[in-house]
């Protein structure tokens, strides 16, 4: 047994040296994924970003990644392994890697870290996130124009600020077209369980919604929508193949542009820790083609997108009341980012009771 451990340790050391040696030629950029790089959703979107980075700067950098890294204590070992192997910049791409990233970063002050969707930073740890709610606002506009019944179904995962923010943005978008628009919300309490997502979609369709939105990962709701002949929005990636005649559009995570920008900063020596929250205009998210809708709806969607890009529209602009009728934003007032990132209330017009 001892021999085996020794052999393992030696080979690990050799591997470490090998990685360090090659790292001297090219700058090494590393990624840590919570899921498999082909999960068809969140982690795959990050891996597409890594591939885009290799394509753009492949002559100066090389990339490495670890996939299926569980959040929690194991994450720390994974981050440390990356830092030790000579990475110049490590992207830790899931919320649950936050504490591990901060901890390892203290041990490796010369390595730079970027943590996705978190809120803790340090001298050598920056954070980055995408304003997905901008896309959800556009979806709300489309839903209100497309729905004959004035009701959309919303399959939500967990009542965290990111998801609540999405629901509110969707509603505000819809209300900008039809002030009486309604949304039926089902909390699946899972990110990825195709069966449960499909059941939720069926329940919503049976109760008469004619547009489906999802904040869960699989294409199951899209398939159900296609079967029932109603419309739906995709999630995280373009899901058009699951519903060629069903998908209206989809919010697509396109991290690549951001990864290229930050890697370039490391190469130029201008990198410094920042808390970045980019939106449509920065290309960190894009909208899949607007399909299966009449031209006037498509035009309205494109106009909304253009206005968000130019800054003419901020989805969270007053007057907006909270669900309980109290005032939140005064006329013309724009919400600050802190409120959005900690959002734990619905806007007026949402009938659901927010699980606390």
């Amino acid at each position: 047994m001892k021999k085996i451990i020794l052999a393992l340790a030696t080979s690990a050391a050799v591997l470490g040296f090998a990685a360090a040696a090659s790292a001297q030629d090219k700058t090494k950029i590393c990624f840590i994924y919570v899921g498999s790089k082909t999960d068809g959703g969140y982690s795959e979107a990050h891996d597409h970003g890594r591939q885009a980075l290799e394509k753009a700067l492949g002559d100066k950098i090389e990339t490495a990644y670890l996939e299926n890294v569980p959040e929690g204590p194991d994450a720390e070992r994974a981050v440390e392994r990356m830092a030790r192997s000579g990475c110049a910049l490590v992207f830790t791409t899931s919320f649950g890697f936050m504490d591990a990233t901060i901890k390892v970063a203290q041990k490796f002050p010369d390595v730079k870290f970027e943590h996705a969707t978190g809120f803790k930073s340090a001298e050598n740890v920056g954070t980055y996130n995408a304003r997905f709610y901008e896309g959800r606002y556009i979806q709300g506009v489309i839903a209100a124009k497309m729905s004959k019944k004035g009701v959309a179904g919303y399959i939500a995962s967990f009542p965290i600020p990111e998801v609540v923010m999405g629901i509110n943005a969707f509603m505000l978008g819809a209300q900008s077209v039809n002030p009486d628009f309604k949304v039926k919300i089902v909390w699946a309490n899972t990110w990825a369980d195709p069966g449960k997502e499909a059941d939720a979609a069926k329940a919503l369709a049976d109760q008469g919604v004619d547009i489906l939105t999802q904040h869960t990962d699989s294409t199951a709701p899209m398939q159900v929508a296609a079967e029932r002949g109603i419309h739906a929005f995709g999630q995280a990636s373009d899901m058009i193949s699951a519903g060629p005649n069903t998908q209206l559009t989809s919010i697509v995570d396109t991290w690549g542009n951001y990864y290229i920008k930050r890697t370039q900063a490391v190469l130029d020596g201008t990198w410094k820790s920042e808390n970045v929250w980019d939106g449509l205009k920065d290309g960190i998210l894009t909208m899949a083609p607007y399909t299966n809708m009449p031209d006037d709806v498509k035009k309205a969607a494109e106009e909304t997108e253009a206005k968000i890009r130019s800054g003419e529209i901020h989805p969270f602009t007053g007057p907006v009341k909270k669900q309980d009728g109290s005032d939140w934003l005064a006329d013309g007032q724009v919400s600050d980012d802190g409120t959005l990132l900690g959002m734990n209330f619905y806007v007026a017009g949402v009938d659901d009771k927010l699980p606390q």
Partner: protein
Amino acid sequence: MGIIEAILLTVITAATPLVLASMGELVAERTGVLNLGVEGMMVMGAALAFAATQVTGSPYIGILAGIVGGALFSLLFGFLTLTLVTNQVATGLALTILGLGISGQIGEPYLGVSGIKLQPIAIPLLADIPFLGPLLFRQDLIFYLSIGLVVGVNWFLFKTRAGLKIRAIGDNHGSAHALGIHVIRTRYLAVMFGGACAGLAGAQLSLVYTPQWVENMSAGRGWIALALVVFASWRPWRLLAGGYLFGAVSISQLHAQALGLGIPSQFLSALPYIATIVVLILISHNRRMTLVNTPACLGKPFVPDR
């Protein structure tokens, strides 16, 4: 189609994989083998069924692949626990973990691919009965198999000589062996039957429930199937009822949410499990019934003396 009918249709789809997988496990446990690898065999069945359907274009070959794959995979469990006499609980857990890993590899090329849905078969005349027709007689092959399985297993276990032998092995493998019954051979067959049923349940997931492949798509249904066997006190008809009760509760909680009844969603999500616990308590209250039905040799290793 009325809303009641629509809800019942969804319930049937949700309950079928549970009934299938737990029916296989019921037979295995009746011979005294506790196989905790149901989740792993199920997800293997789902991956193999999806892959075979994509390669051949026929979901029926996919079903076959799910059944055969599940049975072969369970053979590994059989070899370890029956021939090498390893601990059944540990081996079963290992089988689940292994199944989740291997199925991920098998399914990798098919991630994000839209699947082929198994089409329903309408049974002539019966399909035209109002209300019941569309519910029960315009279903897919796997649903018919699941009902046939309940009837068949019940008859086999309690009305045939072979069934009596199976129950004898489960209750006292030493005596059964002394009477000249092939304990190990019967257990091998029962384990493989369990694997085949779990594989078929997996095929239902990736061909009927949601025609697609997603890693870990069984999402805990194998564990629910295991609980259902105890829930049903090892009786096929109770198992059918339990599977549908579980399906009904989990679907109606989604409807309750969509209706906006204002009940916390976490509570509603927990309802099916609360229902399971309540029934388990009620069952275990009746000690005689529990003792009569529980296979006495469940989980115990058997080494024939020579």
